[in-house]
């Protein structure tokens, strides 16, 4: 029988684009950090995993559940973003519908303003939303529709806030879309009554309530005696956002998406902000202590924080250690949107005895990559805006057991015979907080230790020779 081991298969060979070499760092043994050429628009012709400005705005605003989200443009942009984020709402479900002006050829020639105004008026009359977001897509920027003027007019007619989001796809990167979303949110702020907000109050920024994570986090802060004024934008409500400026502290997760909003709130309302993460025991606890320290005028908050951490850690620790036993020494490739999440994941994986052999992000900045070099082990490959061949190549080179990424990476990992964990929109279980840490360990274990991989060629090489699939010869 014709047989081959995976060792005989040629590695996936790729040549790096010269421009790309500056976006990949192999961490050396020393401490000197190499500068990453990041934050650039992707090279034309590259198979990039990145999206556009509209995508950035849409993911940030999407979870505001009682708002109307109208996509102004041809149908595609609305179709591809219809209910794709697992952001849970505990109440209204309006945000999960897909609304579009579905611009046609005549609209492109004569302009889409009339259609936009009519669409807004029809929708607001029908659904009675608390506010409306109007997303500009690529061609709106080109055909010159005055979206702001229409929004203003409809706002006057209907009496609800109607906010234009300047998210034309080509006007920058996904990060610029985050900024446009923050600008729209900021217009809502400052319009609500804050008189009943107490002194120990926070906003949770950059938490999108995937699989109900914001509910877990909010509960922790409540147990500390801290009032959560608004969550931006997970399980978001327009009225909460309108009074968010009354909180005393902003806790910002997902640094890429919401830091600009936090900065505006600091500038105009004097609200300081702290960067936090809710992934993993260390980061989750630090996020609670950070708030407790800030409200040190009431020392009972810190006491409660310490108790909560003790209780929650004790609850999950024994089971967590059982997973660690199974996972110790396994290697991971982490490829995520924002670099800040990568920091948390590296720490979590370490807690589980795993090593991060490859790490990358779509939108990390210079500072993020410096920090990644500091916290990773020597030999780790660090990459900005990777393409699938690069990722596949690095995974095979480092012989990783787990890939953590999003929708486009999952089938690549599986084709290589590598376990996968979706730490993006399509996560099914909450991965934040203490319970999330345990869920994460379970999910990683279930995928890494799945019996399916023992039949995959790259694992089979450790055991027996295998027949060659016909397609391997092509």
């Amino acid at each position, binding site marked *: 029988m014709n047989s081959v081991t*995976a060792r005989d*298969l040629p590695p*996936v060979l790729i*040549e*790096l*684009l010269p421009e790309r070499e500056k976006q990949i760092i192999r961490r050396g043994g020393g401490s000197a950090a190499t500068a990453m050429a990041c934050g650039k*628009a992707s090279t*034309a*012709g*590259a*198979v*990039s995993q*990145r999206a*556009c*400005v509209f995508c950035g705005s849409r993911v940030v605003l999407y979870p505001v559940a009682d708002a109307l989200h109208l996509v102004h*443009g*041809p*149908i*595609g*942009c*609305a*179709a*591809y973003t*219809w*209910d794709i984020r697992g952001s849970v709402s505990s109440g209204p*479900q*309006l945000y999960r*519908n*897909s*609304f*579009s*002006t*579905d611009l046609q050829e005549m609209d*492109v020639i004569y302009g889409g303003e*009339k*259609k936009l105004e*009519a*669409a807004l008026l029809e929708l607001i009359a*029908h*659904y009675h939303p608390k506010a409306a977001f109007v997303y500009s897509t690529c*061609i709106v920027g*080109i055909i010159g529709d005055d979206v702001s003027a229409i929004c203003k007019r409809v706002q006057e007619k209907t009496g609800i806030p109607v906010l234009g989001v300047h998210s034309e*796809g*080509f*006007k*920058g990167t996904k990060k610029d879309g985050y900024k446009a979303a923050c600008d729209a949110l900021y217009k809502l702020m400052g319009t609500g009554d804050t008189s009943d907000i107490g002194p120990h109050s926070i906003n949770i920024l950059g938490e999108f309530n995937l699989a109900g994570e914001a509910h877990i986090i909010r509960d922790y802060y409540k147990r500390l005696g801290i009032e959560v004024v608004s969550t931006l934008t997970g399980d978001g409500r327009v009225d909460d956002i309108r009074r968010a400026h009354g909180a005393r502290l902003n806790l910002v997760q997902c640094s890429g998406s919401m830091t600009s909003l936090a900065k505006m709130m600091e500038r105009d309302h004097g609200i300081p902000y702290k960067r936090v993460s809710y992934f993993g025991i260390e980061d989750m606890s630090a996020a609670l202590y950070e708030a407790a320290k800030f409200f040190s005028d009431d020392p009972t908050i810190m006491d409660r924080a310490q108790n909560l951490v003790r209780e929650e850690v004790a609850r999950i620790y024994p089971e967590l250690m059982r997973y660690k036993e199974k996972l110790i020494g396994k290697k991971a490739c982490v490829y995520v949107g924002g670099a800040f999440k990568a920091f948390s994941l590296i720490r979590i994986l370490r807690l589980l005895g795993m090593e991060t052999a490859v790490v990358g992000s779509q939108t990390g900045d210079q500072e993020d990559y410096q920090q990644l070099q500091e916290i990773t082990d020597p030999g780790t490959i660090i990459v900005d805006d990777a393409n*699938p*061949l690069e990722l596949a190549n690095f995974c095979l080179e480092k012989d990783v057991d787990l890939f953590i990424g999003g929708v*486009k990476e*999952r*089938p*690549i990992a*599986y*084709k*290589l015979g590598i376990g996968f964990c979706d730490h993006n929109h399509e996560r099914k279980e909450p991965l934040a907080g203490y319970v999330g840490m345990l869920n994460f360990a379970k999910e990683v274990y279930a995928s890494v230790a799945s019996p399916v991989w023992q039949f995959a*060629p790259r694992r089979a090489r450790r055991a027996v020779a295998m027949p060659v*699939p016909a*397609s*391997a010869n*092509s």
Partner: protein
Amino acid sequence: MLDGTTAEIKPREALRINPAKTCQPIGAMYAALGINGCMPHSHGSQGCCAYHRSHLTRHFKEPVVATSSSFTEGASVFGGLANMTQALTNIFTIYNPKIVAIHTTCLSEVIGDDIPMMIKKAIEEKIIPEGKYVIHANTPSFIGSHVTGFANMVTGMVKYLSESSGKTEAQLKEDAQLNILPGWLDPADMREIKRIANAMGVKYVMFPDTSGVLDLPQDGRYRMFPHGGATVEQIKSSGDSIGTIALGHFTSHPAAEKLDEKCKVPAALLEMPFGLTNTDRFIHALRTHGGVDVPGSIGEERGRLLDAMGDMHQYFHGKTVALVGDPDQVIALTQFLTELDMKPAYVFTGSPGKHFEERVKEILKDQSPDAVVKQNADMFELHQLIKNKSVDLLIGNTYCKYIAHVEQIPYVRFGFPILDRMGHRYFPSVGYTGGLRLMERISDALLDHKDRTCPEERFELIQ
């Protein structure tokens, strides 16, 4: 989430709620993936390409590659030539595909980028290496739908690649090659079309062909360009075929007509082979155009489908159906539903095209003359009609699950995209055997619903 959907139907002019279509470029990207060694290229912003890849990945659970011209503000002002030149240079240098299939986006269409001129320039400047190909299709997102984009890319394949080599009539007759244009089908369906053609013993080229591209076995490797897909040489040779069998008015007929015009290859314009009659027509076309006899094995497959239709006909009789999806699939499936003695009540497509309404009404004129048949419609409207008068069965893509859930209607997933079930990735629905699978799924849905909801005294062991 659908509590806002009311039974009262008001006219809507300016608005699409919960679409039953998406934009042209994704269709072009899917078609391009059916060429061997092809890199689909999206001439527009990065987001388009990312969304299309994600959407296709969710449907197929396969890696999907494509490149983008990564438009920035500069490109939107000065035109996309510089981006295209850089993109083509990079694609051929780094990924080295055999062919690049460019499609446009709303952005590059509105700024008026001239793609043929750009390709010509790239050839002159020797950016396209010897022996490599670049083809294109215009796919403005504000015209038609994803279905149009697919058709435009297949027509682009004919325009750029198909050629008559100058063989004599006698040689062509001796080669006796047929073209099969499958239209927008899943890879499993394309594989089944080929199996049937092989069983019939005809010589054929089929394009596009996404089997072996988007239904790959697990073998421990990631390939940017899998082994499947119609080769450039095969598509070129389509101009030397003695006939074309084109499946689907919307996704295949335009390319077949172009091929006839360009290379004088006569075409049999058929509907997609879903169900008994449409498969009969397909087999008949293979037999007559290919000059072959129908083998006994195919006759047996037909007999088994017919047998099952007889065995089960009492469960299908008179059942009302709401059917929504892409026009070619829906037209063919409507035909099959009438063969099963079901009553299509609402037959919808999100894509524009008058032919859809005309053809479906013609199919239904005796059996279900009161059916509401609509092109260019959306899921919201379909739901409103269902709220007014419900149906026994709902057939459509994954987005129908919301309606099925709130209205508690038995539901069969069919079409594109299917984001939450696995069967379409492996099992065909075309041909006689595919018809059996469709029947099984329809009867399972109806009978499971009955078993779940009927009173105990009506709960039957034998059905």
